[in-house]
């Protein structure tokens, strides 16, 4: 039981670390995490007992259960990082649109504005 909580704690901690960062290092780690997750899923299909033994040692019932936990964390992480990426893009579009709007206005008034 204790090992189950340690596993969850470690997964959560590592998950938050992956999601929180925006550097190329964090992006690379997220990509590696994705490759690891896909590999684990494939191994589970062909060598279920092997994954089952790993899961038991981590306090998780079965290999499939372990994959369900990992999938849940991955999904939540994906939602958070997607939202963050969308906000960054939105800010860039806003800055660009504002710049265009102000430039267009200034050009149409030939700079004769301040009063």
């Amino acid at each position: 039981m204790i090992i189950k909580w340690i596993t969850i704690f470690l997964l959560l901690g590592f998950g938050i670390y992956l999601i929180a960062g925006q550097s190329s290092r964090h992006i690379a780690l997220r990509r590696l995490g994705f490759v690891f997750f896909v590999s684990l899923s494939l191994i589970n299909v062909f060598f279920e007992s092997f994954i089952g033994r790993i899961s038991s040692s981590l306090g998780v019932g079965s290999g499939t259960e372990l994959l369900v936990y990992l999938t849940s964390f991955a999904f939540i992480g994906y939602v958070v990082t997607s939202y963050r990426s969308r906000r960054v893009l939105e800010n860039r579009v806003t800055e660009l649109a504002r710049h265009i709007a102000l430039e267009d206005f200034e050009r149409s008034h030939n700079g004769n504005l301040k009063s």
Partner: protein
Amino acid sequence: MNSQDKKIQDVVLIIPSYNEGPVLLETLSNVENFFEKIIVVDDGSTKKDPELIANNRILLIKHPVNLGQGAALQTGISAALKFTNANYFITFDADGQHSIESALSLVHKIKGSSFDIVIGSRFLQNSTTNVSLPRKLLLKLAVLFTRMESGLKVTDAHNGLRIFNRKFAETIKLKQNGMAHASEILSYIKEFQFNWAECPVDITYTEYSRRKGQSALNAVNIVTELFHR
């Protein structure tokens, strides 16, 4: 004050607008006799509206795409700082909800005072705004949340009628494109310790403004956006 008196100098009206059509023209006809300069920010309107005649007093800035009221407001502020020498800026709704008398009371409160920003409130004494009970409850909840989040004892957390000075305008850079910009303004007050006050204002809820107004569910979006500032 009436149209025969001199127009208010040193104050620019900033009006964000999106598909407001004839209502915007009516709003402008009510205010243009009182203020020397008005900046209208067209936030990527899609409807073919009656042509707004921009002149020396009404500056029309057009977003190439729709971004949101917060973004339009920031564009208006940036334009006001860049293209005018005004020392005070009023944010004013295009849909006719705000009255010229309320705007003038804000001017009267801030000019000559040490306030950096004066925010309109529907819930102070002397305000005659008639808010429906469900909306009032929702707004009171918003006030509670805002007080907890910002620490400011406001009575109206989401009022679009406000006036601020040049120092305030130069400091803020609104990043909330949607309606959460109102809370973002309050967070700037707290962060930079601006001197602020509230002033009773009257809001007129017309059939048009009620139809176009925010739904109660939008409160969920505002709170979510605030967590991701």
